[in-house]
């Protein structure tokens, strides 16, 4: 049911782990739904992401999207990292089964949450970055209401 790329990133996840004193760290998702992603970023003074690491509680797709998201943001500056959308993660993994697409949304959220934390720590505002909704479910509900 998963593409080869997804299986590869699930069985050999890149950048698993923590970063001590990270520039930014964010946790999204909730245990109730069975997916929690934590993303750590190390960002240098020029605003370039030197290192990205993750920890994920979740299914195969959740692990693979986290792994891919860390790969995609590494080496990018903050503005470029914001362009790593769920769609970008999906495409890089050659797609996900329909029921698993929310995992890629979670990966995007995790990047945003880590960047938000970075911005907060540095008392700066990142253009185009909104405070991430930690609970994917809440977000979907809001979208439905709209």
């Amino acid at each position, binding site marked *: 049911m998963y593409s080869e790329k997804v*299986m590869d990133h699930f069985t050999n996840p890149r950048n*698993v782990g923590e970063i001590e004193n990270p520039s930014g760290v964010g946790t999204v998702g909730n245990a109730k739904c069975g997916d929690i992603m934590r993303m750590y970023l190390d960002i240098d003074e020029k605003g370039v992401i030197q290192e990205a690491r993750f920890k994920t509680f979740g299914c195969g797709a959740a692990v693979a999207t986290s792994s891919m998201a860390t790969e995609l943001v590494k080496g990018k500056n903050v503005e470029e990292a914001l362009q790593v959308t769920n769609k970008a993660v999906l495409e890089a993994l050659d797609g996900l089964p329909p029921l698993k697409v929310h995992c890629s949304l979670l990966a995007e959220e995790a990047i945003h949450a880590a960047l938000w934390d970075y911005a907060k720590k540095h008392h700066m505002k990142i253009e185009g970055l909104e405070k991430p909704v930690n609970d994917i479910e809440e977000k979907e509900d809001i979208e439905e209401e709209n």
Partner: protein
Amino acid sequence: MNKPIYLDNAATTRVYPEVVDAMSPYFAEYFGNPSSIYSFAGKAKEAVDKARSILAKGIGARPEEIYFTAGGSEADNWAIKAAAEACGDKGKHIITSKIEHHAVLHTCEYLKKKGYEITYLDVDEKGSINLEELKRAIRPDTILISVMTANNEIGTIEPIEQIGAVAKEHGILFHTDGVQAFGHIPMDVDAMNVDMLSASAHKINGPKGIGFLYIRKGVKIRSFIHGGAQERQRRAGTLNVPGIVGFGKAAELAFAHMEDHAAYETELRDYLIERVLAEIPHSRLNGERQKRLPGNANFCFRFIEGESMLIWLDRQGICGSSGSACTSGSLDPSHVLLAIGLPHETAHGSLRLTLSYENTKEEIDYTVEQLTEIIERLRGMSPLWEDFCKEE
């Protein structure tokens, strides 16, 4: 390991070679329609009658009380919908439990939309319903009680005889979904006081697509599939002769070996449970320790998610199943695990391993070794585990 280690026998089982052999003449050789008059069809009719007798005898019923269906789900649907319809004049209240198979739960939900009222009995932390709660739930307009004989996920065996006695005392129809129990543990329709019982062939090393509904003589429920006069005009459709023959053969073998198989599976299951609980930290057994199906083991491992575990097990050649949301096709984990009081995050980390007498101790040893490694690896990347370790 070349051959997969198959530990998902509650999902389906391997068809025995003897069963395949018994079935095969009824495809191309004795292919006649058992409803036909000419003598050529007689072979098929005889074979169906023989299978029906074996199945009936196995549950202490009469052959004419066995109605073949396309499987357990059809039998459940039929029992509940037809009973609701037949007794609609008396009332519209049905009692079932929170841990039934979806074939029962979704049928009840369907009836709810049609104006029926459903009471879902709670279960305790081991998965057993409470007889006092059942008695309290009974109303003058209660027309049906449906409680499974044994649960498909956690293996807990329900107090069916007592439930049946309560139903009988109040003159209420009693149906039990016996799909997981039939052929694995002794069942007797009179001792259990059941009016209807669902069973399926593919859970007992028979073919898929064939089951039966036992309907006690005198219980007036109408047909579910309309058409020809098959099955005493209660279930239309040309009989699935090879399937029925296979079901009969599988049941014959299951009843003949029930004691040995149950004893072997129970020993192997207990060995698996003891090793897992002793060797894997933060693990728990779900369901009754003793009063459970012989081959069923169901665990929860904290801080990890079930689907990840299954994919890794699969890569090591081990087939199991989980009650996590990702395997249920929704965002909620198994309704059974929630009903026994597990928090969502724990329920997401469940693993069901269901053994057969064909499994070996070596397979269980290998499985426990692999599982220990997999859980360690997954916890190593789990933020929940990270938080837990920091708190410790």
